């Protein structure tokens, strides 16, 4: 976590298996393209969908981040070896 003049910057990173990279990236792109209305509707849809048992795979966490920060999520994937990549994401919140 860091701080600039008017915002807190949050960065987090973890290793993910290479075969998940395309999927996570696609989900991030879709969620980054949503406006506030679409994010709220998507959040409700996941809550109401009885077929979704584990929301981990739905990107609900990313949706929540976007709704709370009003920012797009910056991300990067760096392939470490033939099994894993290092996934970093960054967002920020305004200091008020």
């Amino acid at each position: 976590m860091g701080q600039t003049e008017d915002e807190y910057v949050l960065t987090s990173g973890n290793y993910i298996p290479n075969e998940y990279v395309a999927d996570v990236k696609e989900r991030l792109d879709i969620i980054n393209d949503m406006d506030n209305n679409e994010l709220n509707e998507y959040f409700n849809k996941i809550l109401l969908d009885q077929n979704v048992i584990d929301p981990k795979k739905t990107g609900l966490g990313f949706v929540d981040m976007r709704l709370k920060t009003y920012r797009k999520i910056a991300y990067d994937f760096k392939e470490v070896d033939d099994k894993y990549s290092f996934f970093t994401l960054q967002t920020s919140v305004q200091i008020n």
Partner: protein
Amino acid sequence: MEPLIIKATEDTPEIIFDPENEVFEISNVSLPENAIEFYAPVIDWLKKYKKNPLPKTVFDFNIEYLNTASSKQIFELIFLIDKINEHSDVLIRWHYDAIDEDMRSLGVRFTHLVKVKFELVEYEKEEDDEEEDDYDF
């Protein structure tokens, strides 16, 4: 019906569903490693309670902080409580700290998704050191 009593831990809430004493409360924080596993017995208990509920039930949600996996499970509870409401008189009270905009807006979100009576209850958190001043030694 046997009460459901789950003690709080550092990352899981306290849950007391006790029909005999008419206490139905979830409090503290909800950040379990596995939210589905943690809430499974709570959902089971509510499904049983739904078959024979008290004429009137007040559920108090007094959660200070929760992760997104928990919000899905908490909504499952609220969804079930909404069904209990078809058989008896049910009220949900959603308590949140006055400074916590996130917990307030999650409560507001839930009210839009169910029919059950839903009250948003704002509270002001007391300072810890003020509480300590109350003790006489």
